[in-house]
């Protein structure tokens, strides 16, 4: 089996990740719910994970690292914290439904900036033009469909200049791009723990640049006489028992990423995608690639004759795992002109080998005939 669906979730992980999950399951209780050894061991592990995440994103305050169930949960928290019904909000043309659906639920007035794929100048020009007067902005750092790396540092600078709070969706960027939370000055960074950070599913992170409002209310293990949620992070946003086993695995995933370095991982993934495009040159399909440095380890393609779902099924039957359809990002497809057909998406992990790519591309060529 060759797994090319890393953008959905990481399947291959460092060995330390599942080992930590099992160890946590066998030895750890609930952090902040007791002073006994299993509770304190859990608390120590959870705090180490906050520290590692803070270090990866160059944050001074580990308490501003909040654990969530996934990136969608983190994005909902961030949008709920900044948004009011009917707010005017600016988003990029490559956002996921995890951004657009919460905004639609708020009945926000949504302005869309940058509809041209792999064109950072267009994206920036639109942000510059549309930012004044919006309540806040939401921008993905990397498109989950096309691997388009948006110019988020420049967008963050524009937001700072205009005084517009920025939510960054770094679902496809965490572990791949070196992002500095303090320099970006973003209000929130939202991400899953199970993609580029190589942790287990059911983990996510919300990095807070400032105050945030809870979505869930309940026990936090602190200030128990009070009926309002605590004011301080992370307790304010972490009601209920933590996913300690998941967090223990995520800690090891982040440690791996820090040891290897996001730059090195991006280089590997980018080289893999370029090689993939090379192997598919001349095949009867449209490849969505760019020559510049605006693409990560994600490659979309479509056949003029074969539906992407049929192609994905053929590949799956031959042991190649890819994602097909709209990838929960109809806005990105609309921007790229692929809404009616969808695309077949190949996304690579830091562990993928060249011979696996060669085999997968050879299989894909035969499926395209």
């Amino acid at each position, binding site marked *: 089996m060759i797994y090319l669906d890393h953008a959905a979730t990481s399947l291959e992980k460092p060995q330390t990740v599942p080992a930590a999950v099992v160890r946590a399951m066998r030895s750890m209780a609930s952090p902040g719910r007791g002073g006994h050894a299993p509770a304190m061991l859990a608390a120590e592990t959870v705090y180490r994970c906050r520290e590692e995440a803070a270090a990866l994103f160059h944050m001074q*305050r580990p308490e501003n690292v909040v654990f969530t169930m996934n990136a969608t949960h983190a994005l909902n928290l961030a949008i709920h914290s900044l948004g009011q019904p009917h707010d005017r909000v600016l988003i990029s043309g490559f956002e996921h439904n995890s951004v657009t659906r919460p905004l639609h639920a708020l009945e926000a007035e949504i302005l869309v900036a940058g509809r041209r794929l792999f064109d950072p100048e267009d994206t920036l020009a639109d942000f510059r033009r549309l930012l004044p007067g919006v309540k806040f902005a939401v921008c993905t750092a990397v498109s989950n469909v096309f691997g388009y790396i948006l110019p988020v540092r420049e967008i963050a600078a524009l937001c700072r200049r205009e005084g517009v709070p920025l939510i960054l969706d770094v679902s496809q960027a965490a572990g791949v791009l070196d992002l500095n939370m303090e320099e970006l000055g973003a209000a929130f960074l939202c991400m899953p723990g199970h993609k580029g950070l190589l942790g287990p599913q059911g983990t996510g992170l919300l990095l807070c640049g400032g105050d945030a409002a809870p979505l869930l209310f309940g026990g936090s*293990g*602190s200030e*128990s*006489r009070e009926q309002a949620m605590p004011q301080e992070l992370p307790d304010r946003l972490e009601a209920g028992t933590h996913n300690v086993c998941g967090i223990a695995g995520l800690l090891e995933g982040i440690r791996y990423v820090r040891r290897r370095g996001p730059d090195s991982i991006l280089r590997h993934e980018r080289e893999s995608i370029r090689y993939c495009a090379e192997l598919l040159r001349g095949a009867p399909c449209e490849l969505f690639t760019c020559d510049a440095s605006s693409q990560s380890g994600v490659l979309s393609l479509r056949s003029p004759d074969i539906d992407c779902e049929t192609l994905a099924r053929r590949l799956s039957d031959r042991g190649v795992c890819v994602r097909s359809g709209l990838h929960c990002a109809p806005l990105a497809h609309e921007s790229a002109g692929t809404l009616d057909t969808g695309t077949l998406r190949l996304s690579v992990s830091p562990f993928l080998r060249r011979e696996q790519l060669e085999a997968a591309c050879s299989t894909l060529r035969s499926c395209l005939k």
Partner: protein
Amino acid sequence: MTQFWILFRSLTHAQRAAGLLERRGITATIARAPQGLSPKGCGYAVLFRKRINEALRLLEENKIPFGQVFERRESGEFREARL
């Protein structure tokens, strides 16, 4: 020997504080605060035995919010620290 107890509302803040003190060579441990010392219920404390003024300065410099500071006598009695 007197033991200092600095109170925190959040376990995470107590952990960050203990880590900072440890890095400065002040051995510190974390415990749940006695209910009688936590007016809002269920708080945490960082426990250590020396350099109280330096410890408090460190917490302030690093903007870690903390509550009352107590001294725990050999007898087990708590008294608010005079600083």
